[in-house]
């Protein structure tokens, strides 16, 4: 349990990860530890395999996604980015949040899939910018306060994206 997710995949604890290396190292671990390899093995080995494969899945999902990767890097620094005490958000971002939410509600009530799609594209572009910032804050400048704020923004954007997708799904049905 002393091993963190980055160490598990033999990676440096950086936000700017080479995702192809992450993926191939993940697959290497799974091909050795997956329960399918231990179907006929004794129970203790089966359990061990189950635990390793579960950990690898959890670690891979955490590091693959940029928002959860940033959140995890901050955790390694002892910072809980989504702690309830950690609510500070710059006013301009709050304003923008409200804008996005309003656009989402409007498009939803109009059942306008096209508007929802373009909102999704806008959010993705915003996420991309935040990811560039995060690489800078976390890997280069070690500015964890700025990184925390950017991470919170990114998590928020992901939530809105999920809501947009849900709205599209509802309209399509």
């Amino acid at each position, binding site marked *: 349990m002393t091993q963190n997710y980055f160490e598990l995949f033999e990676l440096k604890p950086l936000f700017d990860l080479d995702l192809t290396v992450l993926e191939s190292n993940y697959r290497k671990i799974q091909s050795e530890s997956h329960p399918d390899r231990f179907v006929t093995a004794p129970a203790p080995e089966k359990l061990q395999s189950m635990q390793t*494969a579960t950990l690898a899945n959890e670690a891979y999902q955490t590091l693959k996604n940029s928002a959860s990767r940033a959140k995890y890097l901050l955790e390694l620094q002892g910072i809980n980015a989504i702690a309830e005490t950690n609510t500070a958000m710059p006013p301009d971002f709050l304003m923008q949040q409200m804008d996005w939410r309003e656009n989402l509600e409007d498009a939803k009530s109009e059942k306008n899939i096209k508007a929802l799609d373009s909102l999704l594209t806008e959010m993705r572009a915003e996420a991309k910018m935040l990811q560039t910032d995060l690489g800078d804050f976390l890997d280069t400048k070690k500015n964890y306060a700025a990184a925390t704020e950017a991470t919170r923004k990114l998590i928020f954007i992901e939530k809105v994206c999920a809501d947009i997708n849900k709205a599209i799904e509802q309209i*399509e049905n």
Partner: protein
Amino acid sequence: MALLQISEPGQYAAPHQHKLAVGIDLGTTNSLVATVRSGMSTVLQDEHGHALLPSIVRYLPDGGVVVGHEAQAQQSSDPVNTIASVKRFMGRNLKDIVDRAHIPYRFADSTENAAGAQSARLLQIQTRAGFKSPVEISAEILKTLKVRAEKSLGGELVGAVITVPAYFDDAQRQATKDAARLAGLNVLRLLNEPTAAAVAYGLDNAAEGTYVIYDLGGGTFDISILKLAKGVFEVLATNGDSALGGDDFDHRIYCWVLDKIRENSSTFVPLGEQDTRLLLTKARQAKEWLTDNFEAQIVCRLGNGTLVDVTLTAAEFVELTQHLVTKTLSPTRKAMRDANLTQEDIKGVVLVGGATRMPHVRHAVQEFFKQEPLTNLDPDKVVALGAAIQANVLAGNRSENDLLLLDVIPLSLGLETMGGLVEKIIPRNSTLPIARAQEFTTFKDGQTAMRIHVLQGERELVSDCRSLARFELRGIPPMVAGAARIRVTFTVDADGLLSVSARETTSNVEANIVVKPSYGLSEEEILNMLQSSFGAAEQDKQARALAEAKVDAESLLAAIGVALEQDGHLLNTKEKQKITAKMNALKADINAAPSPASADAIREATEALNAATENFAARRMDASISSALAGKNLDHLEI
């Protein structure tokens, strides 16, 4: 000189011994069994050369069971005892079956169910062989395939991989596993059908890249998106409809024919079970015929003599069923969105399942993905072939295809929270195996138990999701409200099956979990079923025991009768009465109607009589010794 080779203790002397393992596609309409022989995945045929076993089970009047073509042949004449498409009922309860009026089976309510409250929520079908659960009926199909495989491979199977629709929930998976157990199969893995198809396709075509498997079977629809690279099959997203398949197309035709009959006759008599089955069969044949023809003629005579003669054109068929085809596209879109992919990212679309032979289905898939779907593998066999490859690897046979399958959970798992809402714990499309822990606390001071309700599904309300299990956590140390920390861990294994464990973390007390599955079979029920499958043998054993007990009892009665006649004077009246009472009790037991407990009752009464006559026997012994000794001197005493 050649040295003798001696293997490490505990290791096989023959390391390359091939272990017999099979892949089984337990389908709604047809089932298949395949195995890897000399490196090639092959579907095994029965003695008549049939690869496909119709998933139809018939319970015969003489107590026998037939499966497959033989059962299918009697489907129309004996619809109530001939069960088809049982897969649709796996892990379901009565309220899940929406169109019962058009299914020619007699479904049983829990109250009619002799098995008792354990399976209160489980659906059962009434046949002449009694109430049968879908698990038992499926087990008959699996048994037939097991026999076929063992005959054909000439040995006992080490294990089997059984395929399930990717969109099957926990209850349906558990039911499938129970059926396999009942059939005496060692389940190496439950494998998702589209993933199995991807294995067969990917290995056959050395495919790399992102592929879509569109699997429309007899009763289920699955869509899976997989990334194929160097023997790793990673499922990115899966979706589907576990109650949509070729059967529904048959059903649309059936309804259309009914409408036609009504149009042509002023007095429409409701159809019996035989007519329903006959028309459904005719509908299926028409559907298949329309794959290569412009029109299909449906001709048959109903039980009341009415002649049905109607012609369905391909265009009419498309009109009747286009909404079903459209219905498959919604899950397809969801899966694409979950995988965060667009049509351009897809390298190929593989069609699986007999229902994908319908031209308008192919056309819709082609339109959606903007490419011609791949059909170079037999859509009926590809799932079984892939399952066999996986079975071969799991059984530990050396294989050049060192493949790894990374599959996902198709539906989110959640817990009931305040107000009948579901809180998601494990989101859909999470790679398996997966474990998630959730902490709970107590609501009242000194609370020592809490109830947890696990659900599966995407909807927000408890009533819209499938209830998987209700747990009671007991033995929580009494503390003030909110102080206890109960950590409940949900684990979903590689078969997609859930297990739960709990621990109170502040005191480190392991909470006692009372598992009350609201689905599937209890351990006890499986054991009961296994026992009743040995029922005939058990009855023989009972009959023998009873006969033996009677013989013993009667010989004791006879002996005591003689003894009383000869030496009755040795007993006083009270003693005599006591023995007579015991004798009468034993006689009553012997003459009672035989039941499974008769043998035991007779044995007990026999022993009681034996005990009651011990004194008498001892006195008789003394008396006979004294009479023998009387008037004899020691010199003549014979020893």
